[in-house]
Structures are given as structure tokens and as C-alpha cells.
């Protein structure tokens, strides 16, 4: 029983990270039709900036405060980087979807290589507050505390995004744009500002996932973004492109399935079963869980 609880909470923590990446991917694809391969780069940039800031804020003695400030720097860096990418690289190729995908592929190659050049190939250790590595007892299982941060961050982001989409003017424009972009433009609303905003939100969420993956693995390496991105893609497609709630549900399913299969069957089988799940979902329901056709 205690193993099961531990696996469940860890699976939810992993799912939380997938959701943070997938939510941005899903919004960007839903609104702009861009499959964003650079999303892993946003994540890696955010995680590295947070690590870099953390190692330079030596004047602050409280480890927790220093880490929170560093994490905020990382999140800001992720959002600004993503917004710049949209303005400089994606906007000139407006409506040329294949070229936009290609540019994001090139950007992800270049960014990862640049980070390798600056900070090296080896992983960098995060200086974390002590309480993140301690455990809490729940139903007889000892749960590492960092899992709670991941789950809380994902739930807060999900609630925040849903509130933003439902109750603000820009949220309304984004929802309408996902539904029918041509119509929104025809009504005289400049959708392009929403594009930059969506990229910034996606970059912010990806950087948050990067920082949290740093907490989860207690280090960051240049390949982190790419390896998480593949699972985030799978989550987005299973959830249905463009649907935030679908992504959240799919992220939980994928995270749990991965943990259970890795433990109860054999290690490595979890990744394989996630891949199989994707194939099955796509063949039975090509639109994913939320049912939007992915073409």
C-alpha cells in the first residue's frame, strides 16, 4: 500500500511537469497551428538561468529565499525568451506552418548547443533548501517533499490559466482564436498580440517545468528539455491539441501509467507503454481525449 501511494504521488508529480510543458504547447498549437519544437529550449533556458542566478545571489543567506528569487529569474527569462522568439522568428513566417515548425527545430538545435558551449555537457547541481529533500508521511508512505511543490505548481497554473481564459478579455480572444482564427480577425481584433502573449505564457510554464525538473532531479543538464519534450508531445496529442483540460487529464494518465508500469512490470516498460497508449488513442480517437481532429 505504501509503495502504491508513493508511486501515485510520484506519478502525479511527473504528470504535473508534463502538464506544465504540454499546456503551453497545446495553447500555441491550438491558436497558431505551430508545433513548437523550441519548447524544450524554453524549458532548458529557464532551468539554467535559475541555476545561474542561484549561484550568483551569494549575498542572500536564506537558501529558500535565494532559491525562490532565482526561480523567479528563470521564469521571467523563459517568458521573455519565448516572446522574443515569437516576435523575431515566428511572426515573419505567419501562416507558413511547415516553415514555422522548421524554424523551431533549428532554434532548439542551436539553443541546446549554445548552452552546452557556455555551461558544458555535464549536469549542474541545484542548491536546494533542505526541506525539499525531506519526506512527509502520508498513509504510511514517505513522500519526498518536492513532489508536493510540483503538484501544487501544476494545479495553480491550471486554475490560473482556466481563470485567465474564462474571465479576461485576452482569454476570450485566445479561446475565440482557437475556435476560429479567421473570424476573430474578421471582427477587427488583432490576434497577433494574443500570439505573443500565448508564447510568453508557454515559455513561462515551460521554464517553471524546467525549474521543477531541477528540483525533482536536483540538477539540470542540456538534454533535459529535449527528453521531457517528447513526453509532453505525447501528452498534448493524447489530450487533444488545443485543449488545456484535455492536456491536464492526459498528463495525469501518462505520469501514473509510466510510474506503475515501471515499477510493477519492469523498468523501461513505462516509457514503452506510454508510447503504445499514444498509438492506440490516435487510432481509436484521432482527435485525442477532447475530440478535436488533429490535422
Amino acid at each position, binding site marked *: 500500500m505504501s509503495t502504491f501511494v508513493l508511486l501515485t504521488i510520484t506519478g502525479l508529480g511527473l504528470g504535473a511537469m508534463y502538464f506544465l510543458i504540454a499546456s503551453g504547447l497545446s495553447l500555441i498549437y491550438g491558436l497558431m497551428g505551430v508545433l513548437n519544437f523550441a519548447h524544450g529550449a524554453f524549458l532548458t533556458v529557464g532551468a539554467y538561468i535559475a541555476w545561474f542566478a542561484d549561484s550568483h545571489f551569494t549575498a542572500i543567506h536564506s537558501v529558500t529565499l535565494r532559491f525562490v528569487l532565482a526561480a523567479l529569474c528563470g521564469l521571467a527569462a523563459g517568458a521573455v525568451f519565448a516572446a522574443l522568439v515569437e516576435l523575431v522568428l515566428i511572426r515573419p513566417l505567419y501562416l507558413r506552418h511547415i516553415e514555422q515548425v522548421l524554424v523551431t527545430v533549428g532554434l532548439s538545435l542551436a539553443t541546446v548547443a549554445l548552452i552546452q558551449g557556455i555551461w558544458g555537457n555535464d549536469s549542474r547541481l541545484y542548491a536546494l533548501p533542505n526541506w525539499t529533500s525531506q519526506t512527509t508521511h502520508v498513509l504510511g508512505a514517505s513522500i519526498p517533499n518536492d513532489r508536493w511543490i510540483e503538484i501544487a505548481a501544476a494545479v495553480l497554473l491550471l486554475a490560473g490559466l482556466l481563470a485567465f481564459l474564462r474571465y479576461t478579455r485576452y482569454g476570450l480572444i485566445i479561446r475565440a482564436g482557437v475556435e476560429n482564427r479567421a473570424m476573430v480577425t474578421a471582427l477587427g481584433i488583432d490576434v497577433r498580440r494574443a500570439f505573443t502573449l500565448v508564447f510568453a505564457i508557454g515559455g513561462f510554464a515551460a521554464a517553471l517545468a524546467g525549474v521543477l525538473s531541477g528540483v525533482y532531479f536536483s540538477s539540470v543538464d542540456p538534454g533535459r528539455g529535449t527528453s521531457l519534450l517528447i513526453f509532453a508531445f505525447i501528452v498534448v496529442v493524447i489530450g487533444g491539441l488545443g485543449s488545456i483540460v484535455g492536456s491536464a487529464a492526459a498528463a495525469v494518465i501518462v505520469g501514473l501509467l509510466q510510474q506503475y508500469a515501471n515499477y510493477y512490470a519492469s523498468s523501461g516498460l513505462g516509457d514503452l507503454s506510454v508510447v503504445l497508449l499514444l498509438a492506440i488513442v490516435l487510432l481509436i480517437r484521432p482527435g485525442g481525449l477532447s475530440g478535436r481532429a*488533429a490535422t
Partner: protein
Amino acid sequence: MARLAVAAGVVLALAFMPEYRFGLGKVFDGSLDSPGVLQLLAICLVFAGLALTYDLLFGFTGLLSFGHALYFAVGVYVCDIAITRWHWSFWTAVAFTAAVGLVLPVVLGSVSLRVGGIAFAMVTLAFAQAGAILVQKNPRRWTGGEEGLGYDFERVPQTFVGIPNTKHLYWPPPGYARPVGVVPCAATRWSPAAVWQAIRENERCVEVLGLLPFPYKLLAFALGSFLATLGGIVYMLCVGGASPDVTTASFTLALLVMVVIGGTGTLWGPLLGGALYTYLDRRLGDVGGSHAIHQLPGVLRVPLSQPLFLLGVLFILIVFFLPGGIAGLATRGRAGGRALRRLEAALRPARGGA
């Protein structure tokens, strides 16, 4: 006719490469018949052919697959495992690998081609990822996991083994790249190829004309994947075994970059792009480690010493400023020349009048 002559000249020049005893200055590290240079050239040629097989899917038929690495890796790993782990003879292993390379894409292709567009890209990515995980997992210690698997050199024809024999190893890659180059060339004069291009342009239109796109797409997928598997066997010989790099999604992305740099939907564009990418990827690393680069200030040194950074930037620049890649540049050059001549011809009477 002139293009045919150029092509024949390139083929001849490449064929006698192991006989050239001179170097090309900074282009290569040593004379052209030295083992290191020959191996680099051999790998460039394998990737040239491989990029062309990817172009058959992406450029000709418009199938954006993110799982092409799988079929190349099948060639590399199945052949290596059959020789090294199952102790089969070389030619039996090659025949078996070819059979797997024929059956697997037909099965996986008929499943993944049921969906289109981004969903197709994701299903192929998923299958390739399953292959990559399988290799990592190292079942029965067959694949060697992260360390890869060197081949059992006693079972490979002796002409291909050892550094002095590198010049023999140079023969299979052009032997691979040339027919692979010929296949799409012949295929474009073949009626399914016309349907492929029609599918790329407008699939709905093909259906309206009364043709079922599915068998044609499956044919392109199976042909491209089978040729990639053959390339995998040749690559396995060239590098002396298998390594898990060739199974990753990044490897497929590299193929995509090669094809776009060279020019999608053309024949010699991807050949050129594949060779150029591989050459730059290997050589820029050497140049980046050189003394001249080390003396530069950090702002310049760090980006210049990362081949993938330079290639990524080059790729973005090509997507922005040179759609159609290098091949497109040549076509545009010719079209530009024609336009210029026409302009001159049109202006001549006006000038004469003035």
C-alpha cells in the same frame, strides 16, 4: 545534357577517391587517401543517400515523419545483432535485415498512415521512440544499451576490417548512395511518383479524381524506409558497429535539417544537404577545437566551437532567406538568368529607338 555530364563527372571523381594521394589544404585533415578522410567521406555519402530516402517521404509525398531514424536503426542494429549475437554469416544477416526492413515499414506504415498531418508525425515519433527505448533497455544484452554494440569482425568480410582496409570500406557507401539516387530518379518518371507529388500538393484533389491515396502513401513510406534500412547496414560497416545515437528523435530532426538545407522535393538537393551537414558537423568540431578559435574572446569562441549551433543558425537562415535550399538557389539562378536575358531582349529595341 550538361547536368548529366556534371553528375557523371562527380560520380567518377568520387569513385577514384581512394587513389588520390594529395590533400585539399584545410578542407580535410590529411590527404584524400588517408583512412580518416576516407571514412568521413564514406559517412557523408551514406547520409547523403539517407537524406534522399527521407526526402522521398517528406519532399515528394509530403509525409512529415518524425520516425525515419527507426528504419535506419533497424538496418544498423538488426544486422549487427544477427552477426554478433546470433553468430549468423554476414550475407544471411544482410538478407534477414533487408527482409525486416521490408516487412516492418509495411506493418507500421499501414497503422500510422490511418491518420494524417500532425497526428501522423506523432504516431511515427511514438514508434521510433519505442525503438529507441528498446535499444536503451538492452533486452537479453543484445543491443548493448547506451554503450552500443561493436560488430564481430571475424564474421564480416575481411576486406572491410581494419584501418589499412578503410579504402575498401569506401566502396559500399557510393555503392549505396548511387542506386538510392537512381531509384527516386527512376521513380519520378514512374506513374506512382506523379500521384505522390499530387498527394503532397492536395490530397483531397487526388481523392476527387478517383484515386485512393492510401496505397500510394504506403508505397512511398515502405520504399523510403526500406532504402533507409539498407543505408543502416552500410553505415554499420563504416563505423564498425551500432551506437544508440541513430535511434533518437534528434537523429530524425537532423535528417529533416539535411533535406531542407539541400532543397526539399529535389533529387540532388538532399544528397548535397546530407553530405554537407555531415561534413560540417564533423569538421566544424575539429576547427572549433583549433588554436585560432581558442584565442578568440569568449563571446565568439563559445558559439564558434559548437557545430550544432552553427548548423542550427545556418538552417534558420536558409528557411528564412533561401526557401528551396541550395537546389532552389540554382533553380532561381537559372530562372533569374533567363529573366535577365528576356529583359535585355525587351530593352534592346527601346535602346535602339533612343
